[in-house]
């Protein structure tokens, strides 16, 4: 895993978790802004919310993709990365967990929507408009693209190497 992004250290798990929160929170904010803009006009909402949340979303998406780059396999136009057997295990576990989560969420959604649509008293919320469906579909796409990286960023421990001091001493001793 990368320890720096544009000179910003991301070796601490708390920072990487912050990045994951920013990614999904900015998407939620973007959806809220679109909903608000649809009701009360685009101008002010765009300046106040749509632009910053869109930028935050794109930045967090890019940062998360960079963060997990060493876990990518060779090819796809990337430089050869050193991916050892532990990193491959971590990556495979993250993809497996992401698949489990996404398929479970999809299955639960199908069941929920089936119940909600047949419920005559309309106790449950279901998307009605095209915009609501768009928000759900794009959200699902975003999560499916980023979840493995987000899981790695969320679960990998601090990358601060306790050996660093000793390494410096050894270098000085040589």
């Amino acid at each position: 895993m990368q320890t720096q992004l544009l000179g910003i250290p991301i070796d601490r798990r708390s920072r990487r978790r912050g990045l994951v929160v920013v990614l999904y929170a900015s998407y939620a904010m973007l959806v809220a802004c679109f909903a608000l803009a649809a009701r009360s006009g685009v101008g002010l909402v765009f300046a106040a919310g749509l632009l910053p949340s869109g930028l935050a979303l794109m930045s967090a998406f890019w940062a998360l993709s960079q963060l997990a780059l060493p876990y990518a396999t060779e090819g796809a136009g990337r430089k050869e990365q050193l991916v050892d057997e532990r990193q491959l295990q971590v990556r495979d576990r993250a993809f497996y967990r992401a698949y489990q989560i996404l398929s479970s969420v999809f299955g639960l959604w199908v069941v929920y929507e089936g119940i909600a649509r047949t419920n005559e008293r309309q106790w449950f919320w279901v998307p009605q408009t095209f915009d609501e469906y768009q928000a759900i579909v794009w959200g699902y796409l975003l999560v499916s693209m980023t979840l493995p990286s987000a899981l790695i960023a969320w679960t990998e421990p601090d990358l601060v190497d306790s050996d660093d001091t000793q390494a410096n001493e050894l270098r000085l001793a040589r």
Partner: protein
Amino acid sequence: MTQNVAAKLHNRLSVLRAERRLTRQDLAVALAINYQTVGYLERGEFNPSLDLAMRISEFFGLPIEAIFSRTPLSPLSEQLYSSSARTKEK
């Protein structure tokens, strides 16, 4: 009853590395792995494959059982002096 197949593997990697005055980065380069993985190996948080264990064994010029064990390893110095004392007694 199922057995815990991923039981912790004890090792002497940190001692061997320190003896040879190597950094984690040096060892990682020699073994063609990421330097963070060396840390995971030393702390016993990751069990190496047979291939990696053999590469480590070749690098240090020691048998695998001298580096890895399923039971906690005693200090090398203790083993060395107890074996030399036994030799003297003979």
